[in-house]
């Protein structure tokens, strides 16, 4: 394997959790809900996924547990913001704080435990392609799942009627309601989908990326995923580009440290966060950056009757 292939492979590994989480959040935000609890749902996915995988000895059961944990967390958010029309920003923050705490409690007995990373799944023929073969088609199942998610969400949002209705809820919940669509039910499904994606992204961190559990291991990735959605102007393909850009920066940072670049390691570690801010600035300073946001984003909806 050449150096280039190796770097490409690691970039994909670093980008996949960001991509999965961002795609989930993108659907949530297109339905008009801002869930700032990504970090909390993701870390709960990481903790529960790892715990279940250790207890059962099966990584796939771990993955299912992680998805369930993410959905459970998002359900709390849904009850607060949809059922009780609570402030979405504050509810999301509460979810993040709660998730960081509860994951620490759940993960405490598993600190120090190790597992083998999940087996790669080589796609026949395709993985023998030169240069990109190993990187794209010799990956773990999560990577394929992330590709499938991007395609599926793009198709759903732009090519199907339910996708159109979901976007209508995000643009103007009052109009969608007036047309007879169940706004809250649609948003509930979107939030649960976002939770499932966040849990899956968390499972990737604790089962593949670093095959052990450590408290706070998401290290702000949930927040970066939120930034990627803005960066992507709420479009799935651009979210993919954004996730790979951020993953690339993470890897660049690691390689630069390994190569002994004379920059403090803290400056390199700060790079992804700095780039997040810069990326938001670039997107917003272009013409019409703000207009692409769903018009009802973050506004609670209480049906009138």
């Amino acid at each position, binding site marked *: 394997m050449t150096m280039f292939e190796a770097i490409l492979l690691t970039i994909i590994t670093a980008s996949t959790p960001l991509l999965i989480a961002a795609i989930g959040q993108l659907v949530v935000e297109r339905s008009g809900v801002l869930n700032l609890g990504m970090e*909390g749902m993701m870390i709960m996915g990481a903790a529960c996924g790892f715990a279940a995988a250790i207890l059962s000895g099966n990584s796939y059961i771990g993955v299912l547990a992680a998805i369930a944990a993410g959905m459970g967390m998002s359900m709390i958010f849904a009850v607060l913001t949809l059922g009780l029309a609570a402030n979405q920003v504050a509810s999301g923050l*509460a979810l993040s*704080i709660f998730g960081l705490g509860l994951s620490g409690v759940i993960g405490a007995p598993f600190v120090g435990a190790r597992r083998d990373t999940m087996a790669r799944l080589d796609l026949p023929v395709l993985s023998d392609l030169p240069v990109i073969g190993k990187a794209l088609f010799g990956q773990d199942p999560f990577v394929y799942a992330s590709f499938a998610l991007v395609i599926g969400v793009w198709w759903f949002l732009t090519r199907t009627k339910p996708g159109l209705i979901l976007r209508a809820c995000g643009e103007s919940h009052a109009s969608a309601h007036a047309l007879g669509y169940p706004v809250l039910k649609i948003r509930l499904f979107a939030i649960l989908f976002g939770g499932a994606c966040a849990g899956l992204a968390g499972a990737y961190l604790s089962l593949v990326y670093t095959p052990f559990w450590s408290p706070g291991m998401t290290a702000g990735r949930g927040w970066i995923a939120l930034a990627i959605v803005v960066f992507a102007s709420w479009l799935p393909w651009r979210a993919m580009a954004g996730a790979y850009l951020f993953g690339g920066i993470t890897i660049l940072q690691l390689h630069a440290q390994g190569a002994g670049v004379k920059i*403090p390691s803290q400056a390199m570690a700060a790079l992804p966060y700095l780039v997040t801010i810069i990326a938001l600035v670039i997107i917003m300073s272009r013409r019409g950056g703000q207009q692409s946001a769903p018009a009802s984003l973050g506004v609670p909806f209480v049906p*009138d009757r």
Partner: protein
Amino acid sequence: MRLVLSKRENSSRWMSLLSPLIAVALTIASGAVLFAAMGLDPAKALAIYFLSPISDTWALQELAVKATPLVLISVGLSLCYLSNNWNIGAEGQFVMGAIFGGGIAIATHGVANGPWVFPAMMLAGMIGGAALAMIPAMLKTRLSVNEILTSLMLVYIAELLLDWLVRGPWRDPKGFNFPQSVMFEAEAQTIRLTSDGRINIGTLIALVVVVLAAFLLSRMLKGFEIRLVGEAPRAARFAGFSQSRLTWTVFAISGALAGLAGIIEVGGTMGQLQPTISPGYGFTAIIVAFLGRLNPIGCLIAGVFLAITFIGGENAQIALRLPLDVTRVFQGLLLFFVLACDAFLIYRVRLVRSAPQERSA
């Protein structure tokens, strides 16, 4: 079965005082369930959590020391949230205040200096915190970049900056290679209120800030402007209030208060800079602000309560070998319940069985 919300005509004053108390009661009740699930005696665990921090004068002093940064930060955050400015990066502004103020303490180390040192440190701390908070404010007003994400990203950056400083240029040369700065001189430490205790002048400052903020919100035009911009932005525009100038103002105030809390904490409880200087005060203060109903006096009471959970968590770690994360679980639960109880204030919540087919309006 589904929930139906209908807006209340007028919210009762009694309920708005009662609802934070209900939230606290629900948190304690779910704490009991949580402890029972972990195989502990709930009564004993709750006593350690909530009663041991208020059991004697020594513990009460510790409580005041812990509540001080929470109250200072949350009062500033309340001003932000009331006016719809979502500054969630107070943790970073706290760290930046400690860096700016600590810089003065380190620069004057070993030099003859007078009683001006600590006041200068406090001023520098406020400037440091405000400077960091200005970044999201500027990006929001100039480019309408979402302040939630930028203020949060700056937390990580500020923490890494502190980490670099205490491991690099500011490391104590005689400190056996430990990642920490020199001990501050006596003049550079937060002024103590008693000769033997830990309580310091920060607690008094926090009380003054609470009174000033309460006065600002209830009696001054600026306070009216803050509330109006939050509740009725259109009306505020017609009244000629500048939304962006207000954003700058509230971010500056909350950043300065968080920075002040940072330097008071570092000068008071540690006496030096270390890689980690906060157990998450900046994030907990968000909960304090909401539990206090974005009211300065409310923040004071809520700050004391959350300080109890911090100390209770430390005591439980020692006495029951519980992970410190249990504190965060409590704090998250508390915010859930506060938000849920608020809904019952604004809306009449009814459970409707088997909904009749909705007629679209």
